[in-house]
């Protein structure tokens, strides 16, 4: 028998050969987007928890919208957002201020042999949500009365105008299959126990999520047979993938948006989903340096917001005039102050301030730092010296919270951005008196503001609501504690031969994508 000897020479040769196999060119038949009726999209991270009660949000909501029933969905009405019943219901309407009746579409099947979609599934889902991590969305819901196999009534504990927009259209409004969830032990994570929608769902962690056709679906057919989402965490990498033709639609960052607006790649369209983010520079009204309202008003007049939007955001976002975002009831076209450095200097003189030094805290993101530097230059022009303090997300998000330490006492100026839902009530809730030391870091209270907050939720007339929220923003202006900056949009680039459907808050609804 011949024996094989391993020598240094054969070892080196073998190692070289093994390494070389790593470079064997693969198939030249690379996958390209738009082959057949496959939609290729980006996923910004693995979907961790698909259960609406315990989800993180974002793309998990996108997955729910493809595989689970909802009673209502967002619809754009000109520049505003409103709602419409989904294909899962034949009727959804307010019968009075606290009762919403629904009737489900018959014969819609759950997968895995769990039978048809029933009103009892709706009751189970929403009762379950009241005990979940997303229970806040169901505070207004008292109970669901099941009146028939397909009919029921959502009973609110008190009038709450935004219930359909905020709760039923959004991720927490997803309906799960009662029996399937019970069989799964009451909760689920990375797999749906049963689906009732045009697609089934599967995922390879770290790589992709795939939506394949659901053979049991009898509702409206989706525009694409199959949807493949590649996990691409960084938005810049997704933009490169879009330009390489490997995804058909991707979110754009401010830099890419500016570039695409001026010089779009071939066969590319840009769609704005919504502008439901509001950014401002806040001031601590209790800080000794800023206690005098004239100093705060001087800062309001000293900041040139237009130059921030041009310099830090390449004119890709709209100027903000308050916390109510464009497209929502109560959105204002102007604030009650304007850029006026002369007025700022006069106010400082009137307040007897001649050498003010303040600290501006911001998250260490590129656009925020640029915005902070422009503010620094603006305030220097009126004699206020600003030290910029860039911060990592962790300490930034708790610096104004009393329970997280004493930093709230040292806060002077900061750049802040909140996201909201398509109803004005949500944005106002963070500034009521009981939020002082929680999210109201400006630390002011106003009885009228608190009263209007309650009235705004109960009021159902849109004009009356608009008046309420306009007045609330005026009260915020009058505190002198805010310089409104901008509303950053959720923008998507996509192929021109594809129409997309994005919720105002940016979640994509793949089932409504279509080839045009």
């Amino acid at each position: 028998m011949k024996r094989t000897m391993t020598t240094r020479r054969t070892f080196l040769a073998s190692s070289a050969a093994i390494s070389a196999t790593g470079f064997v060119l693969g198939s030249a038949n690379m996958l390209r987007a738009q082959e057949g009726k496959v939609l290729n999209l980006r996923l910004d991270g693995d979907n961790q928890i698909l259960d609406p009660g315990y989800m993180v949000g974002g793309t998990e909501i996108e997955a729910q919208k493809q595989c689970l029933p909802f009673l209502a969905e967002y619809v754009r009405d000109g520049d505003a957002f409103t709602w419409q019943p989904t294909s899962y219901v034949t009727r959804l309407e307010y019968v009075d201020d606290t009762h919403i009746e629904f009737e489900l579409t018959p014969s819609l099947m759950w997968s895995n042999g769990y039978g048809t979609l029933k009103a009892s599934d709706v009751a189970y889902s929403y009762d379950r949500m009241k005990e979940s991590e997303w229970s806040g969305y169901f505070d207004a819901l008292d109970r669901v009365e099941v009146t028939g196999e397909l009919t029921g009534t959502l009973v609110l504990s008190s009038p709450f105008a935004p219930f359909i927009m905020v709760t039923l259209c959004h991720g927490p409004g997803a309906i799960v299959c009662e029996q399937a969830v019970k069989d799964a032990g009451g909760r689920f994570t990375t797999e749906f126990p049963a689906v009732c929608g045009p697609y089934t769902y599967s995922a390879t962690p770290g790589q992709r999520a795939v939506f394949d056709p659901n053979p049991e679906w009898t509702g409206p057919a989706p525009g694409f047979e199959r949807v493949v989402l590649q996990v691409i965490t960084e938005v810049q990498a997704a933009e490169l993938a879009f330009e390489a033709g490997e995804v058909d639609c991707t979110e754009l960052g401010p830099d890419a948006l500016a570039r695409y607006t001026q010089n779009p790649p071939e066969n590319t369209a840009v769609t704005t989903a919504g502008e439901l983010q509001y950014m401002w520079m806040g001031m601590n009204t209790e800080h000794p340096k800023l206690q005098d309202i004239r100093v705060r008003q001087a800062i309001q007049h000293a900041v040139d917001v237009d130059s921030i939007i041009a310099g830090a955001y390449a004119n890709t976002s709209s100027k903000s005039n308050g916390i109510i975002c464009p497209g929502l009831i109560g959105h204002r076209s102007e604030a009650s102050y304007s850029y006026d450095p002369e007025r700022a200097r006069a106010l400082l003189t009137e307040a007897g301030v001649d050498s003010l030094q303040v600290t501006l805290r911001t998250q260490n993101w590129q656009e925020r730092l640029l915005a902070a530097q422009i503010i620094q230059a603006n305030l220097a022009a009126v004699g206020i010296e600003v030290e910029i303090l860039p911060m990592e997300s962790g300490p930034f998000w708790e610096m104004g919270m009393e329970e997280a330490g004493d930093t709230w006492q040292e806060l002077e100026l900061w750049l802040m951005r909140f996201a909201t839902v398509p109803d004005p009530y949500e944005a106002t809730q963070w500034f009521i008196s009981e939020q002082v030391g929680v999210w109201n870091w400006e630390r002011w209270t106003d009885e009228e503001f608190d009263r209007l907050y309650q009235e705004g939720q109960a009021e159902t007339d849109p004009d009356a609501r608009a008046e309420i929220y306009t007045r609330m923003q005026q009260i915020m202006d009058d505190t002198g504690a805010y310089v409104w900056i901008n509303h950053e949009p959720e923008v998507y680039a996509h192929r021109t031969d594809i129409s997309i459907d994005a919720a105002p808050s940016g979640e994509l609804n793949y089932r409504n994508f279509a080839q045009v």
Partner: protein
Amino acid sequence: MLSYLAKRLTLSLIVVALVLLLLFGMLYMIPGNPAILALGTRATPEAIAEYSARMRLDEPVVMQFLIFVGNAFHGDLGTDVFSGRPVTEVIGERVGFSMALIFSGMGWAILLGIPLGCLAAVRPNSWIDRVTGVFSVGTIAIPSFLVSIWAILIFAIQLGWLPAIGAGEPGDIGDQLSHLILPAFAIGLGWVGYLARMVRASMLEVLSEPYIRSARAFGLPPRKVTGYALQVAILPTITVIGMGFGGLISAAVFAEIIFARPGVGKMIFDAVSDRNFPILQGGVLLATGFYILVVLLSDLLIAWFDPRVRQSL
């Protein structure tokens, strides 16, 4: 040899324990409430409390460390706080992609860098030496993330020859290999220049040794003389390659992010951002173990190549 191995393994265990201890200490120094970062800024107090309990954040750090080490000895690295899946399973899904990237990246760098260094050394001050010198310094100086972006722009977007993102269709080896080319190129390019410079310097030193002059005087063919010289000159390079393999697990993070590939480096990066401590601990444990293993293997390889080292063990 066996006693040497036993000593090295004991030392490795001590290093792993120290790294984990350091990691646990550092986790507590990261500012910010991990529960708020993980659950979002609007998380309810109940959700924060439940998350803290799930992550054992409410227990003393020493207790957390002992529980982790005890479980790790039984192969249990805990569960992902978000999905509830075992950490070993999450790591298992990614480790293959990282290894493929690291070995192919370093593999092509070795295949090109060592011959380039040899060529430059046997023809000092020739045009090939000068070109190698410029190429080496150039590739060492360019960061791998920049190479990654340019590689995508040129080979995926402009020329359309290679895919830009992902790891390829599961089960399709050809597709997976085509997805490996650009990331491997990006992380290996700097190493080509580095290895070429190292081998050249080492070879020049060895080629001036008396025994090489003697070999030449005896009329041995130049190729054979170069082979003998390389056997000695390669020893410091093997050590560097060993450490390089270990370091690539973190260097690959950029490539994994830009090329949207799954991998252990990116998993650790995401775990830091999400404050997903079990995944972070498991990932660091794996990276440390891998580093220790490749350094040990490179030491053993040197002993195999060099009888002087072998006899001293």
